[in-house]
């Protein structure tokens, strides 16, 4: 979701700011890490004495009053369906989305009674998609599109794949309809408008995908409606933010120059601002499509149609082989969509620059339309063109994958087990007992103190509010367990990010090899990451953590690499001229000067790992994620599930705000 993250320029080391912002440097010269250490030592000391008391652990079937009333709220909403105008409106909207998706499905992916097949069959859809690829992005993309569509068919997931595309594109369409006017507002509006939208979008983007599902399903119902709404809500922020940014950054000289020619507001928007921001707007569209795809797969959890369903079914059964093929097809689809939109933007730029022979292009497209029409006709007429025979490859592949992982886990059991044990013994277990076995007042106080130490005064208020919220919603203990997984995952992410990021920044060869892999990694929906990790570590909290690390690593590594690379070469040269070793150069020059990027990478890492820790509830990660899952499964647990959802959001906001405050102190822009 963050291919466009702009790394902050390496901040010059800030001189000691005499203390208006927290303790740190102000009280004598005790460094910040010593304060943090002090807090932890004190925490451990009190923990040893009070361990196990007031932990606010809630047994399986227990509910707090707040949770019960949340459940009642849901019952009221459901009961009010008949006469509450708000709920009627949302249900009408949901019904409308359902009918749109349903119509498209009957056109493209499911039998349209009384036909035994959809209106347009396999061959026709593939031909049309290929032609569109040719028209917007050239023949290479057309080949990619054709290959992708064929792969959906031959592996027997044709209708699921097309369903996923339908949900994705309906949601993207609505996102653009809503998002572009808002982007214009953000891009042309005053500061107050920007501040408000930024805050709202920040909160949206802090929320792990999973959390959207519960409330949306309540108001819009399950199935296609809920899936489309979740997807569109999740896909909306990138287009608003990135397109708005592009419009706002159009050169002021050009705007002034064209204003001076006497243009109207509308002429300025359509002839100057939008064309000049086109590239950035397309990047926003790309991000929106990728976000939509990743949410649309997760929406299978609320019975949304698409490729997510076979993955989910297999995941809950711990059937790695079964999840592999649909998971791989999701990756194929992600790569196809990402490459097509990127290439389309380059292609249109080339066309606008006269780099293409437009007449030739028109002739080619017209000529290519003939076989497409023939294919359309065939696919409506002959069964062989309407439905692809399943050659039965999928079960074979599944068996092969199962076999491979069996062999792999057998062979490397000792290694994976040792890694798991090491991380558990060194990080996971000690921190977990400290966080979750401390009395709530101790853990809360310690978190607040640490927030103050790393983030200064700026971090205190959000931390207090979020901790208070966690207490109120009554899932303190589970929240601490989830926080533990998130923190441990983030530590691992940062280890990876620093090692690989520095390597990438210092060696061109490493960068050339690693960067495309990371780029590809960022386009894959998080859901898919669970599959191979599940194979290695089984249904445990450890799977969620490792999947989170894998999910968060690309963005963090790239941020660190770009930050280290941005350190001015003359500073490094100056260091070298004083005779520093390579190690000294990294530790004393490059990393400190890239501090802002490190903090930003940690911030992103935290949020990504948290998102995954929650999805991990599906595969035995427990804690808040499991509470949400249970809330879906049993209606009497709905209140608790909702409380867990809100608690996840509070956790996310808390870690995000602390990290931002820390970034602010180290001079990083609070950009994301």
């Amino acid at each position: 979701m963050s291919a466009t993250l702009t790394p902050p320029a390496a901040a010059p080391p800030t001189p000691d700011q005499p203390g208006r912002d927290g303790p740190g440097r102000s009280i004598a010269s005790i460094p910040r890490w010593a304060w943090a250490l002090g807090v932890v030592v004190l925490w451990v000391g009190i923990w040893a004495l009070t361990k196990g008391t007031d932990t606010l652990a809630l047994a399986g079937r227990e509910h707090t009053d707040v949770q019960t009333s949340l459940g009642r709220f849901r019952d009221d909403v459901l009961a009010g369906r008949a006469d509450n105008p708000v709920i009627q409106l949302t249900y009408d909207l949901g019904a409308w989305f359902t009918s749109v998706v349903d119509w498209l499905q009957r056109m493209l992916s499911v039998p349209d009674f009384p036909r035994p097949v959809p209106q347009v069959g396999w061959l026709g859809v593939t031909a049309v998609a290929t032609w569109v690829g040719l028209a917007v992005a050239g023949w290479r993309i057309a080949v990619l599109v054709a290959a992708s569509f064929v792969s959906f068919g031959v592996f027997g997931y044709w209708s699921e794949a097309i369903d996923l595309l339908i949900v994705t594109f309906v949601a993207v369409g609505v996102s653009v309809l809503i998002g572009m006017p808002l982007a214009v507002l953000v891009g042309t509006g005053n500061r107050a408008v920007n501040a408000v939208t930024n805050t709202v979008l920040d909160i949206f983007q802090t929320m792990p995908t999973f959390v959207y599902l519960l409330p949306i399903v309540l108001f819009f119902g399950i199935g296609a409606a809920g899936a489309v709404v979740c997807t569109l809500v999740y896909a909306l922020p990138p287009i608003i933010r990135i397109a708005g940014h592009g419009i706002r950054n159009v050169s002021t000289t050009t705007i002034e120059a064209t204003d001076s020619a006497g243009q109207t507001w509308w002429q300025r928007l359509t002839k100057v601002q939008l064309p000049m921001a086109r590239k950035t707007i397309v990047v926003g569209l790309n991000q929106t499509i990728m976000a939509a795809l990743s949410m649309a797969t997760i929406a299978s959890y609320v019975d949304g149609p698409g490729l997510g369903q076979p993955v989910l079914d297999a995941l809950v059964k711990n059937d790695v082989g079964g999840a592999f093929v649909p998971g791989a097809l999701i990756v194929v689809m992600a790569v196809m969509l990402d490459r097509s939109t990127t290439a389309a933007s380059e292609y249109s730029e080339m066309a606008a620059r006269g780099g293409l022979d437009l007449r030739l292009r028109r002739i080619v497209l017209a000529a290519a339309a003939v076989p497409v029409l023939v294919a359309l006709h065939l696919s409506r007429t002959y069964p062989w063109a309407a439905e692809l025979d399943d050659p039965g490859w999928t079960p074979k592949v599944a068996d092969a994958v199962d076999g491979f992982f069996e062999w792999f886990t057998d062979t490397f059991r000792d290694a994976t087990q040792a890694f798991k044990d090491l991380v558990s013994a060194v990080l996971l277990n000690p921190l977990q007992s400290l966080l979750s076995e401390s009395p709530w007042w101790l853990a809360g106080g310690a978190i607040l103190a640490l927030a103050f130490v790393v983030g200064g005064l700026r971090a205190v208020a959000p931390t207090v509010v979020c901790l208070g919220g966690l207490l109120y919603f009554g899932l303190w203990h589970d929240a601490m367990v989830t926080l533990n997984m998130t923190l441990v995952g983030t530590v691992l992410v940062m280890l990876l990010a620093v090692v690989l990021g520095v390597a990438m920044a210092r060696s061109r060869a490493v960068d050339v090899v690693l960067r495309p892999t990371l780029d590809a990694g960022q386009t894959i929906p998080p859901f898919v990451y669970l599959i191979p990790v599940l194979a290695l570590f089984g249904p445990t909290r450890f799977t969620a953590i490792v999947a989170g690390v894998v999910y968060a690593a690309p963005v963090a590594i790239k941020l660190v690499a770009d930050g280290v690379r941005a350190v001015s070469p003359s500073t490094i040269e100056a260091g070298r001229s004083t005779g520093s070793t390579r190690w000294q150069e990294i530790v004393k020059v490059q990393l400190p000067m890239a501090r802002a990027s490190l903090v930003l990478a940690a911030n992103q890492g935290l949020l990504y790992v948290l998102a995954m820790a929650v999805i991990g509830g599906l595969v035995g990660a427990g804690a808040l994620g499991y509470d949400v899952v249970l809330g879906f499964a049993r209606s009497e647990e709905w209140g608790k599930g909702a409380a867990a959802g809100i608690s996840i959001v509070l956790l996310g906001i808390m870690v995000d705000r602390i990290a931002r405050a820390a970034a602010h102190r180290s001079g990083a822009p609070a950009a994301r």
Partner: protein
Amino acid sequence: MSVATEKETAAATSAESALSVRNLWKIFGPRADRIIGTPDAQLSRAELKAKTGCVAGVKDVSFEVAPGEVFVVMGLSGSGKSTLVRCLTRLIEPTAGSVLIDGIDVTTASDAQLRDLRRNRVSMVFQHFGLLPHRQVIDNIAYGLEIRGMKKKERRAKAEEVVSLVGLDGFSHSYPDQLSGGMQQRVGLARALAGDPSILLFDEPFSALDPLIRRDMQNEVIRLHRDLRKTMVFITHDLQEALKLGDRILIMRDGEIVQIGRPDEVVGAPVDDYVRDFVSEVPRSHVLTLKWVMREPRPDDSMDGPVMSCDTIVRQAAKAALASEHPVRVVEGDRVIGIVDDDAILRVVVAEEEAHQ
């Protein structure tokens, strides 16, 4: 360009002015409009900033520009000259005062009137060009015509005429980023000319260019002015440029007018040390006219020397004056108003030689 005398008389009456600026103020900051008229308005820029948090960009500026005149506003960066020129078409909204263009009050114009004024009467050329990177040169030039609603064929034909006027032949279908800085500014110039405005505003148009290209472009402007006789308001921080192009020069400092005058007046009679310091490096023989070096005629003066107009620049007069044994008689119309002898000429030229050593 030295038809300054008849212009001066024209400039005196604002009814005939192409542009008339009266008591124009621009103060940036909160509640800026409340400052004008209070004693605070008289504070210096730094004091005003300290007291109210507002910054005075333009302070009580008034001047008239005659039709066909080249009026240069000169000042260092931060002197408020760019703010001033933007206030003329309300790209920056002035805080107080009035601007009249062809007798139309710009400051009270409605949005539609203002648009009409910008489309048809005033065009502007910018320091950083402000071209549209996604359009070919020809469509950049035609932009002003396009937003007036002119049909594509017609506006392209019209733009094509301007292309050759500014020496862009053969570049119509290039994109701006394929051109050098000088060529890009020619596009900016062409865009401003395409709408056939009566006034052209230039905001430091050549500051971003190399010295040689800058000189070319200055000559281009002089040529265009000679051919088209448009009124021009030219902003610059370069005194040489101001002296070269300007019929009259307005020198600004901290948002205020320091001096308005013809180039020879600014060099020959600077009003204060600030201006004097500014013009101290200028080769005076290139700017001063005979008026500034002549003495009263005496009865014993020879009547055999050459006759020259009092507007003749010293350098141009020097050769003839030194070649003749008799002093030059300086005339205004038919009347002899002064005498310039070799000494007077040499004083200017030699003083300048010394100043440059």
